[in-house]
């Protein structure tokens, strides 16, 4: 069985590089489906509890700062763009451009986490962290009418808030770590136009984390903000 110019990264059990690339991308997409179902469980909990305790969810959502949320969304979208450009650069074999974009993506990821840190700090200060220290005295401002809210249900909202954004932040940290490693390997010229699958797969993972935040932002931050 003839081997074309022996590609160092071609694993023995694949017929040719194209089959290996297809296999890797299908494997990555299947992993992304598990991530969709993983976060799906929490979205199901969110949907059920939003219908049951709408007032508390609205009051809790009004305590979140839209500014930080929106900036975070923008940061993530820009980082998605830089990732796409990084993959393009890898495919074109421009090593410096690739490493540049990867570093920018990691920096954007860090900024997202820092902004998230500020948000969490603010929650700690206002005792909005579920658990024994939780206090919630605010009301649901439904176009001017102040509706008091059962603090217990607000604690439920914040439980979901911390569960979802916490798990998302964890995935951000994994993403940043992944891209830092890839940046170092790319710097050492590990990736060539015929073999850059790890970059592409990491890019897919990053885009999925971005999509999850695209849904998290409106569902958590924008419940009945109209006054």
């Amino acid at each position, binding site marked *: 069985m003839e081997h074309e110019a022996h590609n160092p990264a071609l694993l023995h059990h694949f017929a040719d590089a194209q089959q290996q690339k297809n296999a890797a991308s299908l494997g990555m997409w299947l992993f992304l489906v598990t991530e969709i179902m993983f976060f799906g469980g929490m979205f199901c909990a969110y949907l059920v509890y939003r*219908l049951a*305790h*709408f*007032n508390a969810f*609205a009051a809790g959502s009004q305590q979140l700062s839209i500014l930080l949320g929106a900036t975070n969304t923008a940061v993530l979208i820009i980082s998605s763009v830089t990732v796409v450009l990084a993959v393009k650069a890898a495919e074109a074999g421009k090593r410096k451009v690739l490493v540049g974009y990867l570093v920018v993506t990691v920096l954007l990821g860090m900024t997202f986490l820092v902004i998230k840190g500020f948000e969490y700090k603010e929650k700690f200060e206002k005792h909005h962290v579920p658990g024994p220290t939780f206090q919630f005295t605010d009301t649901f401002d439904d176009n001017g009418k102040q*509706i*008091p*809210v*059962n603090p*217990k*249900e607000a604690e439920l909202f914040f439980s979901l808030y911390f569960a979802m954004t916490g798990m998302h932040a964890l995935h951000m940290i994994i993403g940043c770590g992944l891209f830092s490693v890839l940046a170092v390997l790319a710097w050492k010229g590990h990736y060539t136009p015929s073999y850059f699958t790890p970059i592409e797969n990491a890019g897919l993972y990053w885009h999925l984390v971005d999509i999850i935040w695209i849904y998290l932002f409106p569902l958590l931050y924008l*419940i*009945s903000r109209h006054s």
Partner: protein
Amino acid sequence: MAGQVDALYIYLLLVSGFMTALIFISVLLLAIKYRRSAGHEAKPIEGSTLLEITWSIIPLMVMMTFFVWGAVIYFQERTPPADATEVYVVAKQWMWKIEHMEGQREINELHVPTGQNIKLIMTSQDVIHSFYVPAFRLKQDVLPGRYTTLWFKATKPGRYHLFCAEYCGTQHSGMGGDIVVMEPQDYAQWMAGGPTLPLQDTGKQLFSTLGCATCHRFDVQGRGPNLLGIYNKPVLLEDGRTVIADENYVRESILNPTAKIVNGFKPVMPTFQGIVSEEQLNALVAYVKSLAQPPPGTAGLQNPPATSPAQPQNMQVQ
């Protein structure tokens, strides 16, 4: 009810028995007839789509009969008749506390007369339990934080097992008891035994001592809605939704008043979570339900219930 369940079970047994026999015998015969012997070749047979379709559709039809009969029985089991006498059940880790409307309290025992519809209104103080009476072929999980109901009509006097069917901890198996079914006259005699206050009267006392009467007035429009005759009637809420004021609604409004605010009222009611025990809650709910028929002697004072005419049921999502 138990008779119907048994009839359905026998029908299912017959169908399953027939299917199992059909498969067993055909496998046995084919295995013997076509056992491997020298010079006997296997004939390649592709399969026939027609046959496949028939033995997909026919089982589906048979299964639909299972489904329909089972659903009909379940529908009857989940619609308690209006005239049922109510008994409150509180499940606690490893015992059943039962309170009759007339005030009798029992632990792990439920005395009921024959021939009368009994509706159990059950809740749990801690974990999920399950009220299971094998003789009546009935079971219903009992959940913390809300009411679940179960109704039955006992026909034959005797003592029947009561089990807890949902795993609830160490004494899950010890949490049983008995349903004592008695002739109506024995039941009346048993009932007359203890001089206890009927449940709704305890509820009435609580209604005043806890200060509910100050807002929920009957004579004049108080800060809270008038509770005369609201039980099982549609109530228009502040956010436009209309809900039926059943036991769960009354319970939730006591423990978590701001969840469903009645239209035209300000959300000023304090929560009674942690102040009112499960038994007191049952008494209050029983009292509010007793207000459904205007109590004798205060007929004149009844003013129109605060709710406006029922509106079409719509579940809006804010």
